[in-house]
């Protein structure tokens, strides 16, 4: 594993040499440190972790973990905090290109394929084994296997929730938006009522949330983005019956935007703010932000915010109930202290640290162990925020959806997992396709062809 071989046309530039040198120095340090009897990791280099949790609360918590870990294991941890999103990717790539890769990075299931396909991630099977020894079995659906090895140590997860205001729905005698039909009826009724509310925030944007929303909506009609043919992963958007299903979703998008504020440039922030701010009555989200923000902003509808899964086309009941996505840690090739990094990851995702970390996420991201959802578990016991703000139906509803076979990560469209789901997601082409047929004025078939073509050109899919 690691750096690609020096095949024809491949030029090992300074940056690559630096990576190899760093790896060599790391190895040499490891050997020397072993001789000199240094800490458990066998390297005198600090573990370098680039964290995408940069709020003051998370900084304090993670620094606390690092200090305790250092005291306990005599391994120094150097944490650099960077904003989640584009800034994080830029920083990681800067370090990799500069020949100074970090030991640990944060990664989501949808993003990890981009790293894995570049052969820059170390296997983490031994870390997962160690975690399972200390905690319980890590469900397979939260991992990411590439080239026969696990590449992600999951910590928490999130599932597709369709949050809706039950106060409005009940008042207007509407059914919860579980299916396309119910969702449309409710959205129309709420938008047309004299209550300054839109039925939903139907996003058609070329953003991260736009990608998420588009992919989730496609799954609501059992339409797939990718299909595997042996070792090849193909773009499936424009193929056969799948194309018809994509077309149905896009036709529906053209209707649904009528019941939404203009959401052509919305990202995660806009979707939960529109819900918590009282502009929309329904919001599809990966995780709990629409509810947690409503709680945080002390909105009257915070308690009345209920969840159902991704609305599906009831004439196509094979449809998925949405995306389930783990987020966790990955180890980067060529870094200076991989053994220390493994120990630190294991330290972070076990015991009271994981409880503290999961609680800090305020039930937006949720645990990956089913037993944690039981009343009386270490996670729930004595946690007033959860007990005061979330009813049992919502907690167990999220649990069921997360562990159900009807929710999967976007990578699971193919077996083995689709490593190109990540560049497909971040290319924003799915959101762009939705935009093209709603605000962009493009014909649906042209939009499908355009999206499929761009995905073939840019993602590694055929």
């Amino acid at each position, binding site marked *: 594993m690691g*750096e690609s071989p020096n095949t024809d046309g491949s030029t090992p530039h300074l940056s690559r040499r630096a*990576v190899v040198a760093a790896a060599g120095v790391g190895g040499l340090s490891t050997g020397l440190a072993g001789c000199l009897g240094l800490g458990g990791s066998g390297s005198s280099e600090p573990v370098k972790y680039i964290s995408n949790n940069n709020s003051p609360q998370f900084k304090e918590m993670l620094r606390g973990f690092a200090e305790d870990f250092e005291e306990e294991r005599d391994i120094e941890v150097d944490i650099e905090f960077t904003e989640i999103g584009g800034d994080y*990717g830029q920083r990681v790539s800067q370090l990799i290109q500069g020949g100074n890769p970090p030991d640990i990075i944060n990664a989501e299931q949808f993003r990890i394929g981009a790293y894995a396909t570049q052969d820059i991630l170390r296997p983490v099977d031994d870390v997962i084994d160690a975690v399972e020894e200390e905690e319980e079995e890590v469900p397979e659906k939260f991992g990411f296997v590439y080239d026969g090895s696990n590449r992600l140590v999951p910590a928490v997860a999130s599932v597709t929730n369709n949050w809706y205001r039950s106060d409005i729905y009940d008042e207007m005698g509407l059914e919860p938006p579980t299916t396309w039909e119910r969702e449309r009826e409710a959205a129309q009724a709420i938008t047309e009522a004299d209550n300054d509310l839109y039925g939903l925030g139907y996003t058609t944007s070329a953003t991260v949330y736009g990608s998420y929303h588009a992919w989730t909506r496609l799954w609501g009609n059992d339409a797939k983005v990718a299909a595997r043919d042996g070792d090849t992963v193909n773009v499936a958007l424009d193929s056969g019956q799948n194309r018809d299903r994509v077309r149905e979703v896009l036709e529906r998008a053209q209707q649904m935007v009528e019941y939404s504020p203009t959401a052509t440039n919305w990202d995660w922030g806009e979707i939960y703010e529109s819900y918590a701010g009282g502009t929309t009555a329904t919001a599809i989200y990966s995780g709990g932000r629409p509810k947690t923000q409503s709680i945080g902003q002390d909105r009257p509808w915070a308690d009345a915010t209920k969840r159902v899964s991704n609305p599906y086309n009831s004439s196509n009941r094979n449809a998925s109930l949405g995306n389930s996505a783990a987020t966790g840690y990955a180890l980067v090739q060529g870094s200076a202290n991989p053994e220390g990094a493994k120990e630190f990851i294991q330290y972070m995702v076990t015991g009271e640290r994981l409880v503290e970390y999961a609680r800090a996420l305020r039930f937006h991201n949720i645990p990956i162990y089913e037993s944690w959802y039981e009343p009386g578990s270490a996670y729930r016991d004595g946690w007033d925020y959860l007990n005061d703000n979330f009813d049992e139906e919502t907690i167990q509803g999220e649990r069921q959806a997360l562990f159900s076979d009807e929710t999967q990560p976007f990578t699971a469209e193919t077996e083995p997992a689709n490593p190109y789901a990540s560049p497909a997601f971040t290319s924003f082409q799915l959101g*762009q396709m939705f935009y093209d047929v709603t605000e962009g004025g493009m014909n649906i078939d042209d939009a499908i062809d355009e999206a499929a073509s761009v995905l073939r050109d*840019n993602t590694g899919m055929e």
Partner: protein
Amino acid sequence: MSVVSDRVTALVPTRWWQRSNEILSGVFEDDRRLLAVCLTPALALYVLVAILPMLWAFNLSLYEVSTLNPVWEWTGPGRLVDILTSGAFQAAFGRSLIFGFGSVAFQIVVGVSLALLVNREFKGAVLARAVALLPYMVPAVAIGMVGQFMLNAQYGIINLVLIRVGILNNPVAFLGLPETAMATVMVVGSWKFAVFVTLLTLARLQSIPENFYEGATMCGANAYQKFRDVTLPRIKNVILIAALLRTLWMFNKFDIIYIMTRGGPGEETTTIPLHAYEVAFNQYDLGQAAGIAALMFVFLALWSIVYFRVARPEEEVRVA
């Protein structure tokens, strides 16, 4: 001071002192050596922070390089041709032209108008000039963020005011509609830089002798005729310089567009710099992104030639 200076001088050996004097005299008397001494630090810095990264980027554009992998694979100059002929690049280039020229047109109109306004003598004119120049000190990031909040369809003050005064019935997502997004970004991104035009124009306006206007008045010229025949001929070259220079700077503008729209809705405001960013960090193709940047550099270099040939900025600052 002189006592200290004398003591320090006394400590330095006389021969060394004489030798230093000879060397310095030699430098100051020889124009070429003086030029070399003065320019070398600046040139070294320029090479280090501008030329080398540029060469590095040009070199990078000839390789297939993933953002997430430090291995470079040779592709050659054919890659630049592929980029040049790709639909995405051409569309982004077109949007860059619209954004660049549109922004500059706005900046010239607003900047020159503001300069004419604050050039008048009135009570508080000095304060008015200082206030007019303030926006130039506000960082583009702050302007982008504030602009985004103010234009928000749900809680933005601009929609609120327009609805209150009856211009709009419903809020408009200025940054979310294909019809309004580009124009909105141009306006928000331009008002700060209009002040640059104001600065240049005002300096030129204040150098026009007052007796020119007095003469025109005696000849019976009205305000428009004075502007047309006295003011405009004297500021037109400054306007041309400002226009060409600002086009150069607006064409590669990234921050304000990225903050306000991230290139959306759809790709309506995805100009060349944003396209390069997307290719690098969303499609993980650093080599292609460098190729896009290299082509943008070529365009801007050509535009610079136009700037120096047409505007002849050296004549504007030449001391008689």
